[in-house]
């Protein structure tokens, strides 16, 4: 769970780095070039199977753990507990499921279209690429998609805020100085990553 989670945490940074390129030029050349690289590089193409495995392991373990945890308390309390806890830790299954629904939509709307669908080509001085950027812009001009995207990504941010530090605790790392540092880095990471992802639909919807 923790190892798969940390793996996905690093993946999110790579994914964001490429996404954000779309904001840097109006011709979408940078982004389309990066997308072309991701779609054609053999190393990336091989590694994407490892990535799928990471997702599947994390998702399946998440459900298994949650079901076991529900079974462990067959009778609920009348008065809900309000012990001092890591707040978002209470909602990992809820935020996780919304992110999973988003992931499904993201695959149907974007990933499969880019991989297998007919995509218009666009020519730059550097070469001719699939115009993946145009698909992104089209999606982010739809207000409902933008709203759903923003909600999902905010919930992903909450998921990460707990998950980041939780992964280290599960792996046995708990230290007087390092643990507060990990928590701080986790908070900074989840805010920056979420803000980065959210900036893209907002800028495209309002300014492109």
């Amino acid at each position: 769970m923790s190892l798969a989670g940390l793996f996905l945490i690093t993946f999110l940074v790579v994914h964001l780095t490429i996404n954000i390129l779309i904001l840097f030029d109006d011709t979408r050349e940078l982004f389309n070039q990066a997308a072309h690289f991701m779609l054609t590089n053999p190393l990336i193409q091989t590694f994407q199977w490892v990535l799928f495995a990471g997702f599947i392991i994390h998702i399946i373990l998440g459900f298994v753990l949650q079901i076991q945890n529900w079974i462990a308390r067959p009778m609920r309390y009348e008065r809900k507990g309000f012990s001092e806890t890591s707040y978002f830790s209470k909602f990992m299954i809820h935020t996780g499921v919304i992110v999973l629904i988003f992931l499904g939509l993201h695959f149907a709307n974007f990933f499969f279209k880019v991989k297998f669908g007919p995509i218009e080509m666009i020519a730059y001085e550097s070469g001719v690429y699939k115009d993946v950027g145009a698909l992104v812009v089209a999606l982010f001009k739809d207000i409902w998609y933008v709203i759903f995207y923003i909600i999902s990504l905010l919930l992903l941010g909450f998921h990460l805020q707990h998950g980041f530090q939780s992964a280290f605790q599960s792996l046995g790392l708990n230290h007087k100085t390092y643990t507060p540092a990990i928590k701080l880095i986790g908070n900074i990471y989840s805010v920056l990553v979420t803000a980065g992802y959210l900036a893209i639909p907002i800028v495209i919807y309002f300014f492109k």
Partner: protein
Amino acid sequence: MDLTLRIWRQASAESKGQFVDYQVQNISADASFLEMLDILNESLVMKGEEPVAFDHDCREGICGACSLYINGRPHGPDRGITTCQMHMRNFKDGETIVIEPWRAKPFPVIKDLMVDRTAFDEIIQAGGFITVRTGGTLPDANALPIPRAAAEDAMDAASCIGCGACVAACKNASAMLFVAAKVSQFALLPQGRPEARERVQNMVAKMDELGFGNCTNTYACEAECPKEISVSHIARMNREFFGAKLSAPLKKE
């Protein structure tokens, strides 16, 4: 002060329970919570009703017998104490207090607010000890020089009284803090080291087998533990567990 008590009543392990409301009057703010329940029970006995069953023994916070999930928190609203150490000054006049038993599959209700915590004994039996006989002919444990930091840390873990508040507080009904405290107190001391690998694996296996939930690091256990045992012991147990899984087992005779 006058209070409304909303208490879980269940005649036996097999019967179906329900909440019953009781009124208590003229309770002193200096009374302990269990004294308040004693007053209620006396009035019930006078009326010829069945008194409320709850666990208690030493009434000074060291035996681990008392429990009670009070207004959404194990051992009530105060920090770092057991139910028996809590006083009525923590409540307001006219307040409704909801009192429930620990809720977890491995802790079935025996009667009213009493639960069966044999599951914890079973975890201890799975490895929460050292196999050499102590006392008598062995050299005194205090004769072994132990670094102060390790002794302190082991003592903190050993302050666990096995009350089960960690399980009750955890949204997953996980027993990780209890098991971690027991694993830690031995793992930190030279007497416990030789059997540390077997101990952690056996105790964790027993904990899972008994049906306790999984740890998702919410840290509610640490917040509610009457002995304020740190979740750093859970991390130590995780380290011990991974280490034990990766290393060769001891030879069995």
